[in-house]
């Protein structure tokens, strides 16, 4: 146990046939993702943090301050006394108030226990000045969520809880708002717990993650490590499973509109990004976008081929596929390949392979992506 502030949780919640039981020490820094499929209990757990689940049994303590403890005494701080911000999936702006009224509602009741967050800074950050006089019913989904996040910040929370705030938005709006969320801890000094079932959001936002499945914690740890684990199976997503890598910008090629990145000693190419050389960017590589070769492939369109060694292979006896983890310089890459290929190429732990990466997406660290990363490089 470290001395860093933590949210200690040891809760059990029974809702009809479903039972959630999670014990964890959640770091109160950066962004922590609560990740799981629908029905895994992640939203219920988040609601318990806020005090919205009255039936929750057990103990929750914020940096030593007891929020609830059901035995032996009965302590239960109601939501309004916990000084947390909560952003709901459906925004929940008050329909009888304007945007300004919604923000004022939060400001007037601000706990004063969190960071001194200035209205001006929040309005500027979320571009809300032009919306102040509008009613929530006239806002787009993205605008509503920006107002909801701003409103939660203006309560000066000690912890910001976000429940899939982007799930109702299309890909473009999500991409617009994600950078705002990623910078919340740095800009406003508030730690964030972010509930999501989208691996790309975890890759983009989170520093650490907790994986929930059927009401239980199945894994937790830094995002890069956790996403590289093969033993979690479907809990970290089959189709969307993949790893996070950190590379730095080396140079730009304006003729071909490519940016060269360096990962360890190897070069990677992505569509041109607007970031100076040396900038560290986060990349996401999905397992299904990686093929493995015994010899370095030549005369191939993929520009991104990394040499490495197989660390682990997990075959899925019920499907055609096997998950492999490859150690490359500067990180680990997952590849989802067929079991037949594993057998025919005699792939096993320790074999040297070349990972052919068909698609890389930027997962964060850059402010603007000049070229939309459509198409494979």
């Amino acid at each position, binding site marked *: 146990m470290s001395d860093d502030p933590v949210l200690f949780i040891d809760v059990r919640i029974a809702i009809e046939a479903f039972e959630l039981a999670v014990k964890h020490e959640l770091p109160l820094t950066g962004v922590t993702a609560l990740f799981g499929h629908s029905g895994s209990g992640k939203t219920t757990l988040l609601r318990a943090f*806020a*005090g*919205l689940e009255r039936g929750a049994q057990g103990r929750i303590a914020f940096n030593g301050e007891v929020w609830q403890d059901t035995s032996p005494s009965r302590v239960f701080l*109601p*939501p*309004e006394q916990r*000084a*947390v*911000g*909560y952003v*709901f999936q*459906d925004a*929940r702006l*008050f*329909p*009888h108030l304007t945007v300004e009224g919604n923000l004022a*509602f*939060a400001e007037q*009741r*601000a*706990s004063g226990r969190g960071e001194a967050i200035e209205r001006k800074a929040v309005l500027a950050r979320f571009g809300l000045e032009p919306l102040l006089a509008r*009613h*929530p*019913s006239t806002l787009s989904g993205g605008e509503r969520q920006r107002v909801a996040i701003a*409103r*939660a910040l203006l*309560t000066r929370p000690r912890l910001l809880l976000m429940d899939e705030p982007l799930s109702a938005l299309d890909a473009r709006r999500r991409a617009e708002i994600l950078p705002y969320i990623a910078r919340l801890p740095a800009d406003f000094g508030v730690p964030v717990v972010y509930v999501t079932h989208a691996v790309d959001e975890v890759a983009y936002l989170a520093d650490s993650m907790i994986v929930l499945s059927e009401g239980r914690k199945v894994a937790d740890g830094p995002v890069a490590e956790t996403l590289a684990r093969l033993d979690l199976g479907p809990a970290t997503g089959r189709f969307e499973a993949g790893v996070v890598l950190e590379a730095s910008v080396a140079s730009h090629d304006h003729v071909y509109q490519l940016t060269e990145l360096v990962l360890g000693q190897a070069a990677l190419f992505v569509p041109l990004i607007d970031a100076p050389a040396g900038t560290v960017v986060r990349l996401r590589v999905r397992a299904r976008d990686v093929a493995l070769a015994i010899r370095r492939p030549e005369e191939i369109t993929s520009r991104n081929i990394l040499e490495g060694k197989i660390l682990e292979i997990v075959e899925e006896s019920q499907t055609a596929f096997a998950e492999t983890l490859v150690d490359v310089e500067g990180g680990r890459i997952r590849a989802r390949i067929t079991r037949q290929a594993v057998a025919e190429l005699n792939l096993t732990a320790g074999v040297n392979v070349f990972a052919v990466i068909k698609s890389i997406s930027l997962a964060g660290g850059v402010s603007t992506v000049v070229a939309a990363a459509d198409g494979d490089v």
Partner: protein
Amino acid sequence: MPELGPVLLTLALATITTLLLLIIGTPLAWWLAYTRSRFKPVIEAVTALPLVLPPTVLGFYLLVLFSPNASLGSFWVTVTGTTLAFSFTGLVVASMLYSLPFMVQPLQTAFEAVGREPLEAAATLGASPRDAFYSVAAPMATRGFITASVLTFAHTIGEFGVVLMVGGNIPGRTKVISIAIYEHVETLNYGEAHVLSAGLLVFSFAVLFAVYALNRRAPLHVG
């Protein structure tokens, strides 16, 4: 020129009944809207009883209860020195029971439409439950409050059977419009009956029209 006494008395009765029912009906409607108690259907049924019972039945039981021989009646006599039966206070009590569903049901519907979600949001923004009621739930249910008040007021004005049983026909104390009309007809004074009846008819239509027009109007960012 119609006698003004019954008109003023009726307006006073309806106003007092509506105000008192707002105070009593709001928490009851709130409880019914948000409770998960298994007693909810029982309370709902009791609340709705005045809708289906003949007013004479309600009036009869109240008369029995108000009697100085009954515990409520004797308690009232001990405390105030007067009887509840055949008094204005007795009429108010009877009207409140008689009009209860007209206050509670629109409010309950309005609170149910508000739902738990905005209240949870208010709590996470630092609002206590009382604060959340006044600053979120009540404004969002404004139209429910208007509908409930108007219907209660109008329904109280139109009551007859309960008044006749509990209040009788005492000028200045219990003689409301509907009773006055009845008396005019009994005494073949059709002219006066026409004036009061037409007045009630126009009033009732205006009230209902206002309620329906209000409900038809676009939600103007509310509810």
